[in-house]
């Protein structure tokens, strides 16, 4: 079955360092991947989208990569700040059908001062 997985363990890093989160997918080839941020008690908010023919996408301090050989996307936050602490979700469309997305369970990031 088609699966998308993220590291369930929380990532703890020091302020100013680069945070790297991983998203792996199996048994399908998504046309794109999306990354969302979710704060406690709130709905996810879209951050970035990367298409299968793009290797890398940047937006301010955020960078996303897409490696179709490794079936993996990496999400980087450079110069991380305590305000970046949140859960980050990756999502992709399933093969065929309408605009349905499958979401990973998310990785919680904690940035310490």
């Amino acid at each position: 079955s088609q699966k998308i997985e993220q590291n369930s363990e929380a990532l703890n890093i020091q302020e100013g360092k680069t945070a790297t989160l991983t998203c792996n997918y199996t048994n399908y080839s998504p046309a794109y991947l999306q990354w969302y941020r979710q704060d406690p008690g709130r709905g996810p908010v879209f951050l970035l989208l990367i298409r299968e023919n793009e290797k890398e996408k940047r937006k301010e301090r955020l960078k996303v990569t897409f490696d179709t050989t490794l079936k993996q996307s990496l999400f980087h936050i450079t110069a991380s700040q305590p305000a970046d602490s949140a859960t980050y979700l990756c999502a992709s469309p399933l093969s065929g059908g309408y605009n349905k997305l499958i979401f990973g369970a998310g990785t919680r990031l904690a940035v310490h001062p």
Partner: protein
Amino acid sequence: DVKVTQSSRYLVKRTGEKVFLECVQDMDHENMFWYRQDPGLGLRLIYFSYDVKMKEKGDIPEGYSVSREKKERFSLILESASTNQTSMYLCASSRGRLAIWAYNEQFFGPGTRLTVL
């Protein structure tokens, strides 16, 4: 500012009650979705709708039904609430149902935390 609103932030119901969760979007989006989110399981799709009066089952539709009578409103109904339906329920919307819109992001509401006793 685009918005998806949900009728309640917190809801407590008893086993066997009929529960209505309402979602409204003001972006004129074609697609609307209902998810539930549980620790360690992530977001799971219950139902979605790509047009008024149209609905499609998601991954976990059992015990739920939906209604979309107007484009901006998508309702989730728990016919007879059970304790295993205690969860965070999230509504989302996105633009366009054709493949050319496939890259558009989903906009989420704030969620309804439902507790069934």
